[in-house]
């Protein structure tokens, strides 16, 4: 930093001895230090060796004139501001202008006026100070910025490890997410479930930058961590909500949409809190349904008040769900108009082929905003309903299991009313089973078997709902509302799991027996038990039969036992 109050070193370059002496006297009298030169070349040399702060330069000098000397001095000075005042007796305005063109900052005409020279030196010294302050601040900002960029890079690297893309590369997903969107507070997560199917979550945190991005990390950690253990969408959302509520400041929360895709039952469950309506597009009829937000965003209320209002839809192959943050709706064109939902609806209305819809939306928004370069803020995802088989290359990969662990064991677990109403027992059971060394690769199959047996026991046993209800769209919705009502009013219900495992030479047998409090369904009354079974229980039982060595009903049909045989 420059100390403006300290002595100033002034270079006086003039080939006229008398003029030089006069200037020397005036400048020294003002308390400044003086360095003198008799021609342009000497002025440049002296400047280099003495580094004066201000230069007084005669225009017409031998060896090198003032213009050239000024250019060289400015070049040597570089970024430092060294004010150059030309001394001249010229009155020609063009010549005076040339002084400034050559890099001069001012000029002074002979004869020299002491008062004016003093004032000029003071003013230029002040300017030097300001210039130095400015440069210092500029350098500070550059350093800070470099730090910030570095910090963001580190944060981004950590973030990418935690909030990795999961299965966003699956063949039924198309998405837009700018690499730096994480610092816009946007997050997009997707994972396969142990039972097949898929979870997708799009979140938009309030605010921008690091404060917004920071909440995405625990969110991703919970999402992936719980999904792989087989937790339900409701459990995952509640856990994320409470975590965000606990750790984020009051004013930061996350508008989000989570979807649970079941490719075997051909249905989706959608939870939406605070994001714009998402669209469900029917590939066959080209109709689309807008699904509105029914919940508060995540991280606003404690779990005691948290509502998990889900919307369930039956799907057919090729139907698609579109989820987006408000980036599309609020994308502005040059006239500061917003893209808005109406334009989006129009794109859907005019859609010819479902496969092109995603790109049509993208192009429509990009075209709308034109050259305003805001397309980076747009986060959007399309998920397509497909067959489970179609996605087998993105199936969950489980970490390899330990080599020692329990192989010969049995456990019983009974769930009663309150538990049946509120809890999902499957993650715990899966966890116990997965302790068996070598069984981990079969986690998906085992989870599917458990899940199917449990939902059959609960829905067709304990609360005794008939699955035929689901055969029409209206019945489908009714089925799920009845399910919630009957569960709420449940009394004296139970589901008992009896699990046992026996090792074999290269694998083992896992016996799962599930008993429920329902009346059973008289399976022995039918002539063709297998056919009637399938008609009665839908796709679930057929699926289990495919996965297991054997499946049999016991008692009144309220007990089912399967033998899952596995080999390494």
């Amino acid at each position, binding site marked *: 930093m420059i100390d403006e109050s300290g002595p100033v070193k002034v270079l006086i370059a003039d080939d006229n001895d008398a003029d030089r002496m006069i200037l020397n006297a005036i400048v020294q009298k003002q308390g400044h230090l003086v360095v003198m030169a008799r021609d342009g070349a000497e002025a440049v040399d002296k400047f280099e060796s003495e580094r004066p702060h201000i230069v007084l330069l005669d225009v017409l000098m031998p060896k090198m004139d003032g213009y050239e000397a000024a250019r060289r001095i400015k070049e040597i000075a570089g970024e430092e501001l060294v004010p150059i005042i030309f001394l001249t007796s010229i009155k020609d305005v063009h010549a005076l202008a040339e002084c400034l063109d050559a890099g001069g900052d001012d000029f002074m005409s002979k004869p020299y006026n002491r008062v004016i020279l003093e004032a000029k030196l003071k003013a230029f010294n002040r300017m030097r100070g300001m210039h130095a302050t400015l440069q210092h601040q500029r350098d500070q900002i550059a350093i800070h910025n470099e730090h910030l960029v570095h910090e963001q890079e580190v944060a981004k690297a950590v973030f990418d490890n935690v909030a990795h893309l999961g299965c966003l590369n699956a063949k039924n997903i198309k998405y837009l997410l700018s690499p730096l969107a994480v610092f816009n507070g946007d997050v997009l997560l997707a994972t396969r479930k142990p039972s097949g199917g898929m979870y997708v979550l799009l979140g938009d945190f309030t605010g921008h930058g690091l404060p917004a991005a920071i909440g995405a990390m625990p969110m991703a950690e919970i999402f992936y961590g719980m999904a792989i253990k087989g937790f339900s969408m409701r459990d995952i959302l509640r856990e994320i909500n409470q975590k965000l509520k606990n750790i984020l400041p009051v004013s930061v929360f996350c508008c989000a949409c989570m979807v649970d895709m079941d490719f075997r039952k051909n249905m989706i469950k959608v939870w939406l809190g605070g994001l714009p309506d998402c669209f469900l597009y029917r590939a066959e009829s080209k109709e689309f349904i807008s699904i509105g*937000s029914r919940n508060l965003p995540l991280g606003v209320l404690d779990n005691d008040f948290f509502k998990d209002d889900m919307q369930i839809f039956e799907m057919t192959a090729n139907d698609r769900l579109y989820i987006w943050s408000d980036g599309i709706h609020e994308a502005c064109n040059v006239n500061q108009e917003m893209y808005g939902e109406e334009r989006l609806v129009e794109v859907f209305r005019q859609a010819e082929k479902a496969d092109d819809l995603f790109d049509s939306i993208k192009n429509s928004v990009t075209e709308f905003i034109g050259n305003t370069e805001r397309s980076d803020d747009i986060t959007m995802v399309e998920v397509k309903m497909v067959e489970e088989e179609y996605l087998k290359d993105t199936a969950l990969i489980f970490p390899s299991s330990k080599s020692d662990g329990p192989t010969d064991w049995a456990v019983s677990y009974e769930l009663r009313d309150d538990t049946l109403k509120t809890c999902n027992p499957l993650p715990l059971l899966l966890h116990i089973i997965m302790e068996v060394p070598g069984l981990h690769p079969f986690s998906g199959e085992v989870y599917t078997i458990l899940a199917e047996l449990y939902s059959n026991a609960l829905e067709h046993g304990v609360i005794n709902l008939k699955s035929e209800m689901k055969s029409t769209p209206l019945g489908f919705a009714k089925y799920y509302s009845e399910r919630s009502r009957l569960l709420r009013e449940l009394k004296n219900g139970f589901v008992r799991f009896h699990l046992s495992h026996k090792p074999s030479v290269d694998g083992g047998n896992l016996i799962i027996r599930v008993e429920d409090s329902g009346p059973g369904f008289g399976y022995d009354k039918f002539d063709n038990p297998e056919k009637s079974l399938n008609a009665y229980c839908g796709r679930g039982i057929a699926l289990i039969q495919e996965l297991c060595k054997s499946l049999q009903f016991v008692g009144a049909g309220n007990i089912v036992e399967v033998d899952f045989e596995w080999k390494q």
Partner: protein
Amino acid sequence: MSIWSQPSMDGQELTINIKGRFDFSVHQEFRSCYENVDDDPREYVIDMKDTTYLDSSALGMLLLLRDHAGGDKSHIKIKNCSNDVKKILTISNFEQLFAIQ
């Protein structure tokens, strides 16, 4: 000034007026208009008659006010919203937290 507040005669109610865009740029103004009040109002009224736009950080600021006013026990009314403003509040289901009129 785009945000100002006016306590009722008995000091029981504080009305906050927001003019123009309600976004992060006014967060300091918004906070000081309910933090620098002598009385401790029991009710807050946010008058959005002149509010043209509301973004997600404004929703965050509303939550801060709610927290300041006693969280779940707070009484906050939001009135005179334009359709655009109302839509943003509804998408976020803020009617569960505030009385939106």
